[in-house]
């Protein structure tokens, strides 16, 4: 069910992001979702791409430090309160969210939320149980 997220270690200095995205672009990797957490020294770039196997290989070959993990994707309504509703479900089930990021659908009246949690299976079960639709890597590629 899960979505594969790539986390890449990027030095926090001028031009380092452009160098990284250039490597991906030259190899035809398309970034579908992106989030970054940064400190003064470095950034953790979290991306969901159309082909994580190819992206991982290319980045590793170029000397980047990468970690691939499963995150949970869920489709929510594009209206006030939709995110709160989804998060309340997790909160009630005692599922802690480490971080999240979201992006809009292009055609439908929907948004997509990517969630990093400790227990993916439990998060997926309670979200589905509440009537929300989960999304997969394949879904994201089709968007």
């Amino acid at each position, binding site marked *: 069910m899960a979505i594969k*997220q790539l*986390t890449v*270690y*990027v*030095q926090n200095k001028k031009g380092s992001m452009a160098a990284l995205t250039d490597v991906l672009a030259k190899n035809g990797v398309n970034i579908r979702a992106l989030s970054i*957490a940064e*400190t003064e*020294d*470095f950034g*953790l770039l*979290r991306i969901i791409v159309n082909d994580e196997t190819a992206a991982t290989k290319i980045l590793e070959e170029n*000397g*980047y*430090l*990468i*970690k691939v*993990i499963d995150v949970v994707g869920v489709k929510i309504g594009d209206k006030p309160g939709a995110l709160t509703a989804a998060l309340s479900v997790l909160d009630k089930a005692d599922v802690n969210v*480490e*971080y999240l990021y979201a992006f809009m659908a292009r055609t439908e009246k929907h948004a997509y939320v990517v969630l*990093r949690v400790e227990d993916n299976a439990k998060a997926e079960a309670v979200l589905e149980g509440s009537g929300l639709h989960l999304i997969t890597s394949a879904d994201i590629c089709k968007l």
Partner: protein
Amino acid sequence: MSKNYYQQEIETMSAEEMRKLQSEKLVKQVKHVYENVPYYRNLMDEKGVTPDDIKGIEDLHKLPFLTKADLRDAYPYGLLAKPLEECVRIQSTSGTTGRRVVAFYTQNDVNLWEDCCARAIVAAGGTNKDVCQVAYGYGLFTGGPGLNGGSHKVGCLTLPMSSGNTERQIQFMTDLSATILCCTPSYAAYIGETLKEQGYKPEDIPLKAGIFGAEPWTEEMRRNIEETLGIKAYDIYGLTETSGPGVAFECEEQTGMHVNEDHFYAEIIDPETGEVLPEGSKGELVFTSLDKEAFPLLRYRTRDICVLSRKKCSCGRTLVKMAKPMGRTDDMLIIRGVNVFPSQIETVLLKEGYEPNYQIVVDRVKNNDTFEVNVEMTNEKFTDKLSEIIAMEKSLANAMKTMLGINPSVHLLAPKSIARSEGKAVRVVDKRKLV
């Protein structure tokens, strides 16, 4: 100039008399060491030297050297020359690769060390009318205990503050009208800046003199401290291996430090060949303890690059003068008054599961040393959680603090971002301009 001496007879002794005194002491000391320190006896035997070969200072060059490596090998009791029953104190340095230098003192050793510090305080104008604030660290570090003892001997009212807690330092200094401040130069500068921020003008500050040492500082920093605090700032030199601060001290002339050579005989050698160099040559400073009973190091190589001078001093002292050390023959750094060897960082990294590929960056910002260590993130430790990476940096900094005694700020960088040895690794970037 006023002629303030603590032990005038010694401090102004003629060169001839001094040499005679040193010779007598050396002959006795070599016998004492040979009979009581098997470690050094072996070194002498290997070189084919016996105590009978040492008839005076002119024979000193025949004796083998001691190095920091010997101190490590002989840790903890191997260089001890007195039964522990006769020892009353130990002092210690932070040591390379986790092994510290531990120095032992009999009551006589403590006395002579405190005498040396008393000479320094009196040379800085100290009398029993002074209030002496000792803001060096107390404990295993020699700074606090040494100046504390010297201050007692002079009869100053002693404020045993130890380092840190600047607000309290300022409160005691101003409420009790401290007239002499003893601490590291960077801490003196920091206290000065803090006083300035609080609106104190130099003329409002009761201090008249400062005795600053345990770390390298420049002439510019001296003038800066003197202006901010409205004092005269005196340099002091020492090392735990010989006793602590007070091995050499500055007089009013401020043109180098008088070595207490009746207790510590100074030589300058060529660090490559070990050959003794004539007065005025630049080389490695070597000390021989002429009086120490418990831990009498003979020809101990300090690794400090230095010059000695017997030029006549306007203060009247005849004690040989040493210049401010101009560098090191090894890779030791002095950061915030603490000795740091890059190998210690390496040890911590290996223990904590990191690549031993690192870079130390030292700078001085507003007269305070900054200490950063760049380390490479590893595949195994990499995670997508920012909080965990920040925790890793903190825990690494803590491990280094445990080893070194001072806290670095650790930065985890991308793998391969620090140049490898084959690409001429620069392990230390010291941006401080100290010489």
